[in-house]
């Protein structure tokens, strides 16, 4: 896997996500091991739009590679999912 195909990690920093936990998630980079950090692109988003229509229960949201949406995301859960997805990519 080249540099061009880093895993995209989008963290919703909308106000709802922020108060329900994204305030911690924005520091994800600090918690990731260096090997993982090299292989991801962490992007804070103003709002990914998942909380629309009053569905705030799932907040905070994190999206991986524009396809996988993690609800009630925590640093631990996001890290685990990142590891799993990178492993899958390596196997391909």
């Amino acid at each position, binding site marked *: 896997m080249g540099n061009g195909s880093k895993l995209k990690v989008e963290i919703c*920093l909308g*106000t*709802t996500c922020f108060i*329900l936990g994204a*305030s*911690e998630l924005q*520091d994800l980079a600090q918690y990731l091991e260096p090997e993982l950090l090299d292989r991801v692109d962490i992007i804070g988003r*103003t709002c990914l739009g998942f909380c629309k229509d*009053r569905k705030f229960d799932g907040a905070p949201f994190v999206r991986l590679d524009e396809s996988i949406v993690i609800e009630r995301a*925590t640093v631990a859960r996001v890290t685990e999912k990142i590891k799993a997805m990178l492993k899958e990519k390596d196997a391909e």
Partner: protein
Amino acid sequence: MPSMNNAAERVRRELLIRVIRGELDGTLDQEIDRIPIVMRPSDQPASRCCIYKDRAVLKYRLMGILGFGVEDETDEAKPLREYLAEARLRREPPKEVLSVAPVACYGCIESHYVITNACRACFARPCTFSCPKQAITVGPKQAEIDHSKCIDCGKCTTVCPYKAIIRVPIPCEEACPTGAIRKDESGREWINFDTCISCGKCLKACPFSAVLERSQIIEVIRAMKEGRRVVAMVAPAIIGQFPATLEQLAEGLRKAGFSDMLEVASGAELTARNEAKEFFERMERGDHLMTSSCCPAYVEAVRKLIPEMRKFVSATPSPMGYSGRLAKERDPECVTVFIGPCVAKRKEACSDPNVDYVMTFEELGALFAAREINLGTLEGLKLEREADPYARGFGAGCGVTAAILHEMSAGEGQTPPKIDGKLINPLDRKNMRLLKLHALGKLPGNFLEVMACEGGCVGGPCALVDAEKGGAAVRKLAREE
């Protein structure tokens, strides 16, 4: 450690969002008694022993959001919608701000020292020799502590070669700087309001989320619905609490139903100026000490528990006090709402006619979420007036001293008295003792900035981000000129 990986905080915020949303929509009467069921449906695992207990705890938490304490419960069967109806009619905010929910209080074990099964019942038995009260005996399998004899000195923990003796704290009691929260015979905690200083440390500490805060959010929403001019007086600590600039916050607050945003830093300018003057006068007349007075938990601690310190506490009003005055001078009809990370400000506001209500950052965040206001996408409103950068620093430790020093250096021609400032932070048992010594003149320093919360207001129990990050944001803005 990330603090929001914490189910208690999440539940607190989720409940607030649901209540605020319902009250804004006018549907809360029908919804409120169902919220515990919606949030703890039967088909999902319980967090406590069963979903029924979970729901009962949520009911008490909702009572708190409606402004009621457990002490107000006379009939357990009284539905929440009746409390809601009473809350809407209430004219005076509740006098006490904290309460403990009986069903939620787990009744942490009484004793502080516990011998774990790592104990080998060894031959040397240093624990029995180190114990000054002969409270430890060694049985065939392991040692035991006789809790009627144990005085919690902890000597046994240091001598055990297996580290088998541990200290198990009672988190709320451990956090309380005044010993106001204590068990009754049944093991549940009660707050003694004669010594409680409303700092809210127990609220943050309890892992069972049993400590409730009595909110005034229903009153604030009522004022908005009545079409009153509701002024949001935001504490200096607000910067860094939301992913937004002050300008974006000003616009967000407008959208949320407030008429204006007033930076409490504007009031802090007056506090700093007058406190500097007061310090000068007090030193002139020969006082050995003056302390800040902007932290309401500290002021309450002095009033209730450190009588020696009373005469040294600055008489200058707090930034909130001045801000309320500024807002009411401009429009006596307006409703003033202080918004900060603090529980104790609710108490201070009770005796300040210029501050009508107090909200927390947590409640403001829930209001934004309920109204689906996304601060990051807003363009922002130009601030009517920029507060002094020094005054904006009040929310982080040492900020008050810095602002006063700045004011003193700006004094006209006078030679200011030498200020030997000390920061007393946080307000814990050790620092309560230190304050007594300061009052008696036994410790160096002639100006004390006392902040109950770790790192200053940014470490308040209702802050949204951790104190370090919040403090960095406040200090950054305070330096900008």
